[in-house]
């Protein structure tokens, strides 16, 4: 039998279900992508001045794939910009006031308003590239800071091309105060701003502080005026509508818009409408569609409206129908660059994250009917990318919720949501409060209110910008520099010109490691190099952060972040009550495994000298295959629940996280905090970074986030999980942890992915075991888990690249075998079995 043909034909892809004709049409229409006559791609808007600029590259400094396009994108948006007629006083205003006015003018009076057929929520187009509203002088000054010889861009390229990683002040990645916006309406927000302004002295009103609050007041009227436009559009459409049901719907939408988001929401429909408009305008304000602008605990703050509407006669399915429309809207973020790339702008999930379920005060479980309704919506709409769901679990999570979660995992290709684990996450937030001295804002009475941004990055809500993706540092670089006494092991190459750059003494001169007599000396040098790479990252970040703070205010978003009005500072200037920026440690396992291998090969077993090892790495292991095999197979590894190896992991973790806490941004006084999210950097940087002592050649992937290196977790998923929990700090005695007995040195959280065999979920008996597995993760694991289910695609890849999958275990009803060690015929059969769900 030709298994590959059968595979294509039979592979059971998850299908959406229980969709009304309305939702089915809206969902299908969305997925028609470029064929759609309507879309939400970026439109560009300008002042008409010759120096005008729209595109801000700093927000993409963390996306290396875009580096080559910066100048092109800047030029194209300038060229495409439609001029907006400016207010006669425009150039006399402060920059934040210009910005607030301009965005509002574009959104209300220039960008077309539309309602898609059958849609129950208004607010369609929001992707814009708007003028930065700079004067000629501001443009020149800012460009000098960016593109001068020591400017941000050249710092970035230096940093990236040498394999340190990347950093940049990035938009999004925040949970705005949506709950409050629904509760008091924009009217309330505006009134508060007015009060803050009135509280200023007349002198202060004339300063930057006064200007900032005035700008925010302008921004705060944008939702009201846009809602009015949509309301009148709905009424026009209703008048022309023949279908009486649709006519009524359109009048109802108009009625909603008459009230919200200006007035407080009363019904569920109003609340979802208000939430969407408020949210989409954040993306307009930042010119940044989606990534990380997250909703927080939606099943908690929408619950009063949900219950109110249910008790006043809303049918539960109608409530879900409103949510499904909201789901479709969130996906239009991807339209921004719909003509770029080969998947119509849809790349990875953008991460407009929602949290559901989780702990409340006193350890109470907060799962409710809306939690389940949202899970139903996810299940019925999936596969769909946005909004990205993250289910919070804890010791007290009810069985019913776990049943639902496990059920959804077993019927999808991998988990349709991330899982967040409250106890470990809250321990991290408590650690943050202590280390940053903000226990008044994060403490045992409110830490359960935390929520996740983007994927799994934990922050507080409505008052917290933690720059969760802003600094991505390859921790492995410090090992490389230790092996060379502070110089690159191999010359950096400019990816555009292909030119090799000269090797210099970049890091501290920690000496020739061949002269080190003990592991202790090596560790000492490694510690200094770690301090150095972190300070280098902080320096690059400062270059972008200081420019953003001066030139890129986002007054609308600032209205939704507590502290900005009070401090009279934009959120980009450190206005939020909680101001962090997160240093994401990338390549953790590769780093730990490299340290373990150096200790094992050179110091403990004396399998080779330090010179030999360094030579092998310079030669990319070519001609040193035996040593490489020893590094790979003989040296201990993180991720096997081996206490000695995991102890090295913990020491490396303590070292770099302690270093991170030592830094703050100079321009905005934001405290650095540690986290471990690797996005896709572990792939790209693998081609830049030299070979590493764990046996990895240049060109092979690095390790991802907090996960053990690919294929090293030979003791299976539970051992892998235990190792992850241990390097985060594990547990202390009762009450001696950061939260309860839990310790956690990563307040941001840590991304952890494991791949499981589908046979673990094959029947009710095994699904019970899997529930217990998740409860075990709550005790021993990290902050967050993505579960992938082994599928035919991965097995086929393992057939072609057996070297990457040496420990891939397949289980066929309890019988285990290492996939790559069995014959081709049996492999084919197993692939075919997985494809058909016959495990």
């Amino acid at each position: 039998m030709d298994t590959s043909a059968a595979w294509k034909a039979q592979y059971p892809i998850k299908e959406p279900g229980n969709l009304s004709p309305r939702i089915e049409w809206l969902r299908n229409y969305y997925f028609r992508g470029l064929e759609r006559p309507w879309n939400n791609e970026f439109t560009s808007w300008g002042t008409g001045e010759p120096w005008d600029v729209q595109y801000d590259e700093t927000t993409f400094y963390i996306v290396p794939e875009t580096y080559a396009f910066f100048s092109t994108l800047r030029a194209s948006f300038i060229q495409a910009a439609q001029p907006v007629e400016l207010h006669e006083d425009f150039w006399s205003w402060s920059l934040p006031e210009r910005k607030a006015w301009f965005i509002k003018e574009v959104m209300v009076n220039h960008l077309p308003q539309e309602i898609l057929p059958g849609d129950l929520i208004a607010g369609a187009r929001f992707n814009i590239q708007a003028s930065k509203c700079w004067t000629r002088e501001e443009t020149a000054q800012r460009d000098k800071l960016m593109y001068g010889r020591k400017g941000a861009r050249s710092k970035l390229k230096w940093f990236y091309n040498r394999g340190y990683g990347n950093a940049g002040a990035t938009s999004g990645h925040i949970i705005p105060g949506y709950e409050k916006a629904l509760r008091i309406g924009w009217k309330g927000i505006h009134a508060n701003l007015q009060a803050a302004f009135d509280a200023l002295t007349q002198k202060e009103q004339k300063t930057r502080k006064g200007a900032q609050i005035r700008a925010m007041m302008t921004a705060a009227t944008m939702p009201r005026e846009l809602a009015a436009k949509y309301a009148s559009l709905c009424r026009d459409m209703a008048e022309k509508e023949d279908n009486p049901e649709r006519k009524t719907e359109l009048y109802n939408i108009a009625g909603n818009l008459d009230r919200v988001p200006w007035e407080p929401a009363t019904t569920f429909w109003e609340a979802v409408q208000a939430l969407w408009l408020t949210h989409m305008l954040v993306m307009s304000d930042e010119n940044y569609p989606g990534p990380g602008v997250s909703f927080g605990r939606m099943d908690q703050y929408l619950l009063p409206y949900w219950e109110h509407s249910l008790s006043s006669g809303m049918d539960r399915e109608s409530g879900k129908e409103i949510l499904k429309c909201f789901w479709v809207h969130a996906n239009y973020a991807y339209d921004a660059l719909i003509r770029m790339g080969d998947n119509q702008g849809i790349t990875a999930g953008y991460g407009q994250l929602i949290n559901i379920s989780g702990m409340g005060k006193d350890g109470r479980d907060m799962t409710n009917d809306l939690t389940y309704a949202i899970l139903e919506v996810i299940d019925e709409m999936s596969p769909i990318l946005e909004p990205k769901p993250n289910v919070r679990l804890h010791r007290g999570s009810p069985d019913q919720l776990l049943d639902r979660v496990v059920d959804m995992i077993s019927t999808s290709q991998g988990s349709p949501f991330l899982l967040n684990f409250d106890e470990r996450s809250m321990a991290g937030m408590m650690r943050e409060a202590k280390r940053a001295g903000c226990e008044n804002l994060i403490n045992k009475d409110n830490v359960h209110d935390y929520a996740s941004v983007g994927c799994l990055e934990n922050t507080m809500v409505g008052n917290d910008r933690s720059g969760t993706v802003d600094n991505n540092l390859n921790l492995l670089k410090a090992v490389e520099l230790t092996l060379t006494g502070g110089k690159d092991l191999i010359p950096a190459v400019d990816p555009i010109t292909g030119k090799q750059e000269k090797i210099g003494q970049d890091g501290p001169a920690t000496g020739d490691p061949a002269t080190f007599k003990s592991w202790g000396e090596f560790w000492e040098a490694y510690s200094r190099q770690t301090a150095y790479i972190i300070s280098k990252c902080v320096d690059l970040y400062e270059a972008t952060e200081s420019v953003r703070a001066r030139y890129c205010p986002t007054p609308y978003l600032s209205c939704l972040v507590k502290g900005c009005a009070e401090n009279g500072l934009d959120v980009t200037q450190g206005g939020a009550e909680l101001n962090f920026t997160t240093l994401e440690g990338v390549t953790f396992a590769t780093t730990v495994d490299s340290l373990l291998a150096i200790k094992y090969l050179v110091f403990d077993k004396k399998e080779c000298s330090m010179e030999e090892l360094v030579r092998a790495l310079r030669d990319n292991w070519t001609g040193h295959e035996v040593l490489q095999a020893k590094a790979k197979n003989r040296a201990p590894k993180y991720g096997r629940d081996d206490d000695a190896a995991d102890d090295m992991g913990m020491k490396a973790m303590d070292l770099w996280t302690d270093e991170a806490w030592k830094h703050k941004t100079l321009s905005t006084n934001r405290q650095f905090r540690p986290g471990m999210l690797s996005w896709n950097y572990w792939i790209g940087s693998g081609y830049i970074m030299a070979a590493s002592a764990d046996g990895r050649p240049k060109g092979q992937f690095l390790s991802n986030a907090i996960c053990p290196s690919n294929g090293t977790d030979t003791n299976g998923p539970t051992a892998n999980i235990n190792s992850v929990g241990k390097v985060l700090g594990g547990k202390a005695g009762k009450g001696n942890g950061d939260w309860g007995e839990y310790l956690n040195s990563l307040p941001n959280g840590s991304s952890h992915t494991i791949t499981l065999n589908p046979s673990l979920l094959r029947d009710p008996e095994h699904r019970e075991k899997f529930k217990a597995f998740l409860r075990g993760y709550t005790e021993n694991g990290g902050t967050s888990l993505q579960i992938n289910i082994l599928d035919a695609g991965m097995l086929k890849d393992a057939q072609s690249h057996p070297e990457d999958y040496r420990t891939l275990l397949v289980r066929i009803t309890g019988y285990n075998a290492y996939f790559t060690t069995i014959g081709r015929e049996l492999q084919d059969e197993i692939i075919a079995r997985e494809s058909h769900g016959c495990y």
Partner: protein
Amino acid sequence: MRSLPVKATDVIKTGMAKNNSSSAATILEIQRLSTEDGPGIRTTIFFKGCPLRCTWCQNPESISIRPQLQWTETACIGCGTCIDVCPENALTSGAEGITIDRHLCTSCEMCSRECPSAAMKMLGRAWNLEELIAEAIKDRVYFEKSGGGITLSGGDPAMQANFAALLLKSLKEEGIHTALDTSGQCAQDVLGALLPHVDMVLYDIKEIDPDRHREFTGVSNEKILDNLVYLCRYMETHETPADLWIRTPVIPGATAYEENIRGIGRFIASRLGNSVSRWELCSFNNLCSSKYERLDMDWPFKDRPLMSRECMENFAGCARGSGVDPDIVHWSGPTKMEVGNK
């Protein structure tokens, strides 16, 4: 390649060698997140050494009580270190990779210690009690959350009974649920010494006919069935073991015929009282054929197809109609794939 075919008839001159040590045991593997060897999430400790020679054996590397050398082609980098260090010249390199002359090899472990890529590997090693317990209870939290625990399997733990008894006792003292997976081919007092520390027993009845049992496993089933009856009497008068699962491998050309299944069922119903809480028919599995190749062993079942689903359903039907409580009958294992008929 040199091969040492396993014949049930050469019983069992070497295999009966037991390990009477209570301080160390030869353990093949410790498998975590086991979901098939008893209730909940378990860690299964595979002992080396088995008194039976089942021709269909799924774990040929567990038959011998001694550590065994294995070479894995996909892991080998071809450096030749093993050949250089072998003091017996038992290793040669050829078109098919490394060949082990198992008559010359003395299991001195030089090659496996020096192999940089772990392609040359000893299956099984000695563990002392303390280190084994420390390793085995690392998943305690998963046991607690799932109602799982630790299963002693193999091979047959009864081949290293003194150690197994101490291990079980220590685990019970740790408050861990214990399961014993045994062939039952041992002296009654050996079994009796293990049972006080066992919460549940997994026990095979492979074949009800004593002659056929001898033909396929090398021994008659007499002692096995006697011990099983003894076990059930023991359970009736003691609090633990509280659970007994019977497993029957359904092997085409051997145990897979209706009269066998019915006969086993009648035996369970008439002789074992209410002690059996689960009777599982396990379908023939061919995944292990590459293990035989790596151990230079011939396997008479290597070309056998899997059972069909209908066939397994049919046997399960026979089992349910054999006089046992039908609710205790389960079947598991792979079956022939039928495309589009999940």
